[in-house]
């Protein structure tokens, strides 16, 4: 939570840094292709998500939780593309990333608490222990 420090420097007010209001923006044209491409990828990834859910990874690798892990990895990849490309997080200003780091940390803390309850319980208080 430490935004840009400029000790002692007088920050100048918003100087006229305005994108051109008319004319074309060649760099946006490139992005159009990118947006459509990523959109297409996401639709395919959805099909893959559904298909993978019918493959029993627990049987394949042995143990529990593989299906959940694989599903979450696929979902995270999709979410990553939405966040990075559609939400312009790739190349976004430092401040936004700083907010998100802290948020991610606290959300992880929240998830951890739900698992903690089952990882380190008092004997006999979770059904898994009867």
């Amino acid at each position, binding site marked *: 939570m430490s935004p840009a420090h400029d000790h002692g420097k007088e*920050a100048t*007010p918003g100087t006229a840094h305005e*994108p051109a209001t008319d004319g074309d923006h060649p760099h946006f044209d490139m992005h159009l292709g990118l947006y459509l491409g990523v*959109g297409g990828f996401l639709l395919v990834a959805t099909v893959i998500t559904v298909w993978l859910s*019918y493959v029993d990874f627990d049987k394949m690798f042995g143990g529990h939780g593989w299906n959940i892990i694989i599903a979450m990895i696929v979902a995270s990849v999709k979410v990553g593309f939405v966040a990075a490309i559609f939400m312009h997080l790739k190349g976004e200003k430092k*401040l936004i990333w700083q907010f998100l780091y802290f948020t991610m940390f606290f959300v992880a803390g*929240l998830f951890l608490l*739900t698992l903690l309850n089952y990882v380190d319980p008092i004997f006999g208080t979770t059904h898994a222990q009867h």
Partner: protein
Amino acid sequence: MQIPHEVTARPDTGLYNAKLGIWLFLASEVMLFGGLFSAYIFLRMGAEDGYWPRGLLNVPVGAANTAILIASSVTVVLAWASLKMRKFSQYKLWMGISILCGALFLIVKLAYEWPQKFDHFGAFIKKDALEHYEQYLGNHHLKEKKLPPRVEISGHLHEVEIAADPAEKEKLEVFLKRHDLEAKPDEHDAKLQVVKGKHLTPGVVEDLKRVPGVKLIAFEVALDPINADPTNPESDKPHFWYKGATEKLGKIEVKDVESWSSFAPKHSTYFAVYFTITGLHGLHVLAGVLIMLYLWLPIEGGANMFKRNPEHLANRVEVVGLFWHFVDLVWIFVFPIFYLL
């Protein structure tokens, strides 16, 4: 009196106000849905075997809704890009599609997915009665395969057997008439009556239960495939194509039932958290649709801003786009978690 950096970025942060504001808001939304998902994890891990259902949601419909939202995410960012390139009619096109997609998502959810659940019936069988309903549950077969037991019988209500106090006959008749139901004496036991009708949903039966003098005795259910053919290996895991209730009927005595309801939020912690998360998500979709509509209509703060201050409009579209992408993002997690896992 103009607030600085409403449209043009502040040099040291590189952001205009609303962009910073929406990311802060999204951070809080991450915590909100994070709280709900952590509740999901907590409840799922805490659920006893058999009490957390799978395969009850319509996967093709859910997948289609996912595709609709993804498409609308693409179109909203294209709408923003059109505005940045000052192409107004393109903006209207892409934004219009986004709005329609959002509305379609809501229609699918509210006109099909949710109502369909309230027609469905499920009864959890008491532990000591499970053996009695083995023909519908197939637990021996599941035990052999080391799969978790089944404790629920579900399907569509076909008829309900009741014992009615003759003194309260009138109230019962009024009720039956109101709900377009009919009651015939049971062929095996003249003291009981069998209620059936076209609209015999669990909700109606809950109201029936509260009619004075009425006591529920048994349910006859048009069974879902997993209860109709529980030992079939096909029933061991969920499938892509959604199959509704079969024609096979099964009878369940109310005394053997731990709890019963439609697939409403109160049915189980699974449906509780499903309805809560998809409901809250749906409210966010609605909010997004309304704001996008506001920016699309030819009004002062909306599309008419293009002539006066196109950059400001582009910023507003960017901000609502960020919100919309977040909504899409949440759904990308919701879909596999509830529909597939």
